[in-house]
């Protein structure tokens, strides 16, 4: 089976928020970034995948298995990192292993202690004594010790310093190097994904905006800049989002519409630009 994660028409209704019709596929051996502004439905999507929330409709398959019908089997091969640790604060790192390892038949104690060594986590320290970056690495060490095939990260880098974020990206790149592991990485810090992600799934106000190759996503948009007099009604219709100021304007346009903007200054768009201009913030500027 070549798809490690398949999400089809996934929907969830809350009183004040709706996640509608999310569909995407993550093949084996790749990293997918799940992006969107805060409150757009990233965490809801992750929790639906893990069956921590009950879906209203749709389907989720992990390593080819239905995530509800085969929940136990699925969870044996999924590792999860949340934005903060989910172990007891008072546990020593050693105790974390004791408590969690019993749940996984293929837990590799030697691998766990190698990882602790590598991440420079002392087994005698209490979880609450570890820095945020260390706590994240502890969750990773656990997932790697039972050889999770699919790693799901939910906002792992919020509140992390640049060094830890870079380390995380390196660890993930190593993790998928053998082509047998995949990563779903939800974040609003898109700089982390700019280079490392293979696929992008962009959710906006609970709806799917894009899912596909990252290069394709980034190539699909351009940033154009020009003077105030070039900010015409006709061009504005083709802009996905724009920001005007006394001395000029900048806007996000689709690459396919670029011909009409050829007289302006054109630049490649970063993932951040695309998210900012296509979200509410971008519209307010327009």
């Amino acid at each position, binding site marked *: 089976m070549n798809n490690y994660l398949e999400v089809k028409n996934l929907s969830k209704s809350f009183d004040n928020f709706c996640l509608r019709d999310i569909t995407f596929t993550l093949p084996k051996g790749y990293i997918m970034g799940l992006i969107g502004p805060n409150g757009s439905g990233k965490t809801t999507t992750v*929790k639906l995948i*893990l*069956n*921590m*929330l*009950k879906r209203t409709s749709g389907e989720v398959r992990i390593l080819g298995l239905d995530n509800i019908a085969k*929940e*136990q*089997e*699925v*969870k*044996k091969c*999924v590792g*999860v990192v*949340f934005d*903060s*640790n*989910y*172990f*007891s*604060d*008072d*546990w020593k790192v050693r*105790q974390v292993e*004791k*408590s*969690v390892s*019993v*749940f*996984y038949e293929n837990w590799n104690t030697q691998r766990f202690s190698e990882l602790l060594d590598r991440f420079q986590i002392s087994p005698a320290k209490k979880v609450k004594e570890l820095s945020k970056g260390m706590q994240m690495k502890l969750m990773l060490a656990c997932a790697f010790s039972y050889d999770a095939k699919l790693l799901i990260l939910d906002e792992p880098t919020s509140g992390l310093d640049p060094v830890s974020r870079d380390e995380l990206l390196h660890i993930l790149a190593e993790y998928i190097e053998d082509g047998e592991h995949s990563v779903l990485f939800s974040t609003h810090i898109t700089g982390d994904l700019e280079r490392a992600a293979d696929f992008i799934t962009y959710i906006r106000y609970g709806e799917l905006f894009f899912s596909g190759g990252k290069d394709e996503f980034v190539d699909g948009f351009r940033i154009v800049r020009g003077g105030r007099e070039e900010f015409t009604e006709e061009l504005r219709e083709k802009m996905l989002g724009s920001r005007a100021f006394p001395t000029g304007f900048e806007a996000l346009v689709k690459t396919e519409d670029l011909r009409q903007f050829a007289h302006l200054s054109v630049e490649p768009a970063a993932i951040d630009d695309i998210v900012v201009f296509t979200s509410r913030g971008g519209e307010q500027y327009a």
Partner: protein
Amino acid sequence: MRNIWKSVRLDFSLIKPYGKTICFTMVLPVVFAAVNRSLMTGISFAMCFIAMTTGYTFSIAEKNDMERLYGILPVRKGELVIGRYVFVMIMGLTALVCSLIIQPVMLAILGENVTTLEFLSALVAGIVLFALYTVFQLPGYYRFGSIRGRVFMYIPVAGFLGMLFLTARTPAKSGGLLTAVIHSPILLMVLAVVLVVVAYVISILVSVRIVQNKEM
């Protein structure tokens, strides 16, 4: 079945850092037994205290947002719930057995003789009291969380006060409970045990339902 044991172990590792505190609270009932010169009082206190410690697992899990850990472990929610009940019962039984050994010895040292009947009635009363305390408390915690669920802790306390009130009103040797036990001790014990089992089964079913309907 194996998953239930794993869940039990997980619960024990949760309260492990609080082990000393719990052991210390279990010394107090011995003192009460000694002061009141009554095994029944000591056992009642012991069961009340140990029932209160069941809240620890909930408050520790809540403090650390461990719902997320429970959500990713490869176990059924029902297995986690049953595991917690087994954990609670082990705690209760351990406290009961220890108290039933230490307290009579203590009383004997003080020159107070504990009859077999007193011993047996304390045993049954201990089991019944503990079940009474926990069957309400656990679904309360699952439904309302460790803070608001704490209200359900007052059920054991109220039960304990009522018990104390009853035993204080009637002379120890001819108390209502004791008289009944004297008349048909076996029947009463069997009845008590059956009641306890039924109460736990209902309580577990309620808790599992609550947890399965809960979204994290």
